[in-house]
């Protein structure tokens, strides 16, 4: 057994890089009179740069290949089942007459939601001057882009006749055929399109200085040309930094309303209708809170293993993870607040169908899904009240998985329960997904993880240039603390002398 473990060690602990294993440092101790070090392990600019660049520069290891190939094979499911769907039509799905919106919309909303953490971290936390965002923003933004790609795929294939998907865009045409501008489904096209564009720009712009670092370190001409072209002639001059930081601030300010708007518009898909359980005014902020909740959970799911594999425990420290857990706890409770207000108002409003819709959710034929949702989204994050739990790697990883599951089920509960049992009881039906539904859902995960694996391999995983800024601040405050300490010691010895 022991020998087997020895033999498996390089696979179980597949360090992707030559980075030495960094020890887990507990930098979460709260102190009301100082700020903790966000980067531990005595790192300086050089070691940070080496660590991050080596992920891209060293040969990929067996661990990366394993992850990539697994994700890529799951992605293959899309290659099989999407053509199958297009060829045979949506009859290959489990959607039936009352439940016309099944997995496709559930997956769409789920992935758009996942895609909220990146922009929240890079834009809103930037405006709130949260320095800890610097270690996680790059990966989170990459994840955002990939999640939005996954999300964007679903409306494309669920229109039924996928070759007419371009009708979603208001293109001038001879048939005078226009999309319905009064439909929130069309607003989605604009909201998600704008979000994708701005997130991509934001992500790319933030990466330019780091791409230039990779270019400068490149040892072969392919890398030199590729990173050279991508870094747009960045030299790091004073003037360039000035323009860069101004535009970063502007993009952050522009991206901030998008964090709110995208999922609000997605919530309109449901809330503008008269379907019981969908038509309720709290939907926009409730969806936004849920999106941030699920997005942060996905960031944790990805970063907890990644920091281990890439030897980045001193860059993405326990403090970073703890902060993310706090946000998960907060947004989890916001989601819980929304559940409770919906339930209360369904009773208070005195509208019979509305009341039925909610009782049916909790105790009807989909009660199992409802209680999975409540326990994963509301109860599971409560464990983070305890500091021991929110700084425990295993606990947070498990909770993050729970939240991912719970948020998928939230969309399932909203979509399916309300449609399956609405006003006309003679038209009720039970929704059961078919093989194609499940396979396309899995395939989307494959797409997501494949893209993420490629990102780890070819682009700077950490915003090096921003982490360098944090290091400078850290050094500065340490100096100031030392100075303060020595002056206090001086005055103490002085007073002793007088005695």
């Amino acid at each position, binding site marked *: 057994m022991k020998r087997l473990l020895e033999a498996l060690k390089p696979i179980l602990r597949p360090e992707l890089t030559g980075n030495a294993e960094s020890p887990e440092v507990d930098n979460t101790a709260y102190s009301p009179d100082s700020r903790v070090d966000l980067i531990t392990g005595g790192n300086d600019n050089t070691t940070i740069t080496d660590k991050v660049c080596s992920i891209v520069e060293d040969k990929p290891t067996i661990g990366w290949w394993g992850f990539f190939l697994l994700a890529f094979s799951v992605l293959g499911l899309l290659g099989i089942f999407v053509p199958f769907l297009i060829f045979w039509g949506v009859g290959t799905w489990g959607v039936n007459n009352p439940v016309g919106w099944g997995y496709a919309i559930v997956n769409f909303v789920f992935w758009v939601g996942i895609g909220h953490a990146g922009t929240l971290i890079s834009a809103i936390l930037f405006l709130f001057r949260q320095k800890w965002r610097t270690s996680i923003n790059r990966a989170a933004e990459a994840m955002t882009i990939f999640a939005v790609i996954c999300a964007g795929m679903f409306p494309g294939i669920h229109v039924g006749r996928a070759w007419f998907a371009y009708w979603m865009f208001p293109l001038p045409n001879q048939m005078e055929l226009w999309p319905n501008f009064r439909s929130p489904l069309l607003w989605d096209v604009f909201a998600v399109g704008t979000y994708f564009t701005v997130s991509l720009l934001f992500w790319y712009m933030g990466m330019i200085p780091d791409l230039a670092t990779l270019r400068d370190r490149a040892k072969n001409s392919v890398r030199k040309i590729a990173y050279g072209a991508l870094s747009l002639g960045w030299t790091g001059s004073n003037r360039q930094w000035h323009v860069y930081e101004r535009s970063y601030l502007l993009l952050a300010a522009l991206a901030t309303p998008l964090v709110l708007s995208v999922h609000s518009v997605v919530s309109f898909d449901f809330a503008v209708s008269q379907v019981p359980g969908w038509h309720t005014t709290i939907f926009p902020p409730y969806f936004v809170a849920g999106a941030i909740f699920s997005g942060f959970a996905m960031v944790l799911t990805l970063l907890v293993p990644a920091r281990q594999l890439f030897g980045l425990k001193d860059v993405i420290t326990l403090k970073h993870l703890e902060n993310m857990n706090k946000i998960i706890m907060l947004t989890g409770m916001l989601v819980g607040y929304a559940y409770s207000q919906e339930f209360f108002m369904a009773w208070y409003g*005195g509208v019979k169908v509305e009341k039925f819709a909610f009782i049916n959710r909790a105790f009807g034929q989909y009660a199992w899904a409802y209680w999975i949702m409540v326990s994963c989204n509301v109860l599971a994050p409560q464990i983070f*009240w305890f500091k021991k739990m929110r700084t425990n790697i295993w606990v947070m990883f498990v909770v993050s998985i729970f939240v991912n599951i719970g948020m998928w089920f939230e969309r399932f509960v909203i979509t399916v329960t309300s449609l399956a049992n609405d006003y006309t009881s003679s038209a009720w039906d039970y929704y059961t997904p078919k093989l194609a539904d499940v396979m396309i859902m899995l395939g989307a995960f494959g797409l997501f993880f494949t893209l993420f694996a490629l990102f780890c391999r070819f682009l700077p995983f950490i915003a090096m240039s921003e982490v360098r800024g944090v290091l400078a601040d850290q050094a500065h405050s340490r100096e100031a603390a030392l100075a303060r300490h020595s002056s206090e010691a001086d005055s103490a010895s002085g007073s002793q002398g007088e005695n």
Partner: protein
Amino acid sequence: MRHGVTVDLSTENRTLGSLSGKMIALGTTLAVLGLIGTLALGNLEGAFGGHEVESSAAAHDAGSHGPIHGFVTEWSIWHPYLVSACFFLTMTLGGLFFVLVHHITNAGWSTVVRRLAEGVSRNVVLMALIFIPLVFPDSMEALYKWVHPDPGDEIIAVKSSYLNYNWFLIRLAIYFTIWITFAWSYHRSSVAQDRDGDVQRSSRMSRMSPVGVALFAMSVTFAGYDLLMSLDAHWFSTIFGVYIFAGCVLSFHALLALIVVFLQANGRLTRAVSDEHMQDIGKMMFAFTVFWAYIAFSQYMLYWYANIPEETIWFVRRQSTWMWSFWSWVMVVGHFFVPFLFLVSKHIKRKRATIALGALWVLAMHWADMYYLVMPQISNGTEFPFTMIDITILVGMAGIFIIGLALSLRGHSLIAEKDPRMSESLAFENA
């Protein structure tokens, strides 16, 4: 960061001192003026007599052949009273939220103004006193139809286990207990730190703040439902609590800006609170102006779009006459577009005169918002119920609020003297 730059506070005037006397004098003047005005005008309007007869006549009408409303259609003095009471209550609660959020986030920049927020939040005791006249059976009956619903009103009957007089009183007592407990304990702990400099106090306050925020969220939501939404007991909206919350935070930041400008004009905290802090307060006003608009838009758009009569009626009442339509447009333009455009610029937020102007505007709009929530049900929105009593009550309560603020801020420093984050806050700069 202004590394190494330290603000010398030894020569800074950090107490209210003689200013408290001036504030109390001003407050008393306003309160007396407000009271006299209200009494005089109230007599002219017949607000203190005849109400019983009218309301019973109206009830008789409704019972026999009139439409069944979930709201009272008769004007009473308690309507403008509720408008202004909610105006000041929301502001005060915004102060409590500011303090709790400061601790939950371990914030640095806001340390220099936190004592002022604590002072404002302590006014919640005063607000409890102001709400006492409202909870007598007569005034409740004049405001809320559900106290004595029309016979045959099935909608109110459904929720009578929630909307009834006793349970309402108990809930109100619970809300105020939560608010007073947190406001006083955080203020007391903060002032105690001025004396002993114990950093453990900061950690304790930080540890308790998540509990405070959770209780705050639930209590503000249900207080919003009880005090304002149940004015029309038939109407409901799940976002209403968030709408009230947005108003709380927005109006508090406006008030905070005004307090700082007032204190600095009188030589207090002239160096401790810098342009940088003003800019941040302005940013929060800007952010919550947008947030309020987002919430208000969500509520309006979703009800307008689905077009279900029992939901749209609330808005129909607010836009079927030209005066209420105009008021609705004031909400859109004055509550959102004007402050949005005004507060974009950094220079506006940093200059005392301009930020004060913006803050006054925001407060006026917040009052207009409370007016918009309370008044349109009078005569079912067919008449515009504005009287000078609306203003005299506002003036009177403002006087009382200022007296409370003076009492709350005097007797100790205007800044949290020995807060461990004070030096960070003093050196704060918008990068």
